[in-house]
């Protein structure tokens, strides 16, 4: 039942900025209309963020990671379920590592 000071601080900070996004976004954006460029950037942010996250590990993970990514996309397209897509990806990487390694 351990709660360290540095971890607590990180968690509180994360919670604070998350609430600022949830509630602050509503409070600010309903009074102030952001300039068109910022508005367009906000719409592009999620996709670019997840691509930027995935690029280095996919390149580092080589063939098994790419095969896993294809499996994730296939399952997500077919079943539209993130949980099942994650499971399919992990299982595929596991199999690919065994087959190729």
């Amino acid at each position, binding site marked *: 039942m*351990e709660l360290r000071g540095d971890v607590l601080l*990180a968690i509180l900070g994360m919670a604070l900025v998350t609430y600022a996004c949830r509630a602050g976004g509503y409070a600010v954006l309903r009074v102030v209309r952001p300039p068109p460029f910022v508005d367009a950037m906000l719409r592009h942010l999620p996709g670019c963020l997840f691509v930027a996250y995935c690029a280095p590990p996919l390149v580092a993970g080589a063939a098994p990671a790419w095969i896993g990514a294809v499996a994730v996309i296939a399952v997500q397209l077919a079943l539209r379920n993130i949980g099942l897509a994650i499971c399919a990806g*992990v299982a595929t990487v596991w199999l690919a590592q065994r087959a190729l390694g």
Partner: protein
Amino acid sequence: MSDARGRVTFTRVGVWRGGRASLPLWLGMLPFGLVIGVLADAKGLSFVETMLMSAIVFAGAAQLLTLDLWADPAPILAAIIATLVVNIRMAPMGAALAPWLDKLRGWRLWGTLATLVDHSFALAAAEQRAGGRDAGYLLGVGLGLWVAWIVTVAIGHMLGSAVRVPPGHPLFFASVAAFVSILVPLWRGPRVDLAPWLVAGLVALAVHRAGLPVPLPLLAGTFAGAALGAWIELRGRGVRA
């Protein structure tokens, strides 16, 4: 549609209906929550720390990303910046639900906003478009998902403590898998997304190769790609106008 102009209410019945609407989503959250719990344990977070984070941050993608860069001592600033960048997408959600939220006051407004996540936004937006007027629905979906999140992360952490996961295990592919699957519905076609996504990935790789620490590759890639996307979009609009 005509009903949408009627009075917005906030009832217990609406909250319950939202809670029930969240049930089918529990199945989809189960592996996601389990992965977060197992990874948190692998990164050395205690049960209490893991549950506190899941309860008050309550944002799967942000938690996954920060756990990925977690170290001992905790990377406080990096965790906060990464969380902010991942969750900034929530900012326009509340504004989009303004027809409901503008009618709420006090805890009903600020408490409902605290539970806002991608799925509750999607369900509530659909309900609103269909003429729904009970804003309790949004809180109900959010609370239902919150309970599911807490339960699945707790189970994941307990599993993780029972079975040690060595570094390099395929399980760590789960975070990449989660973000790849989130990307699938975000794809709006090559004309809109191809160039920004390519630039985001390439810039992130280059900054990563240059040896700069997390979350700088992520930030540089994200903002380079999003800026390009916005520029292309505005330029296209200008030509047509």
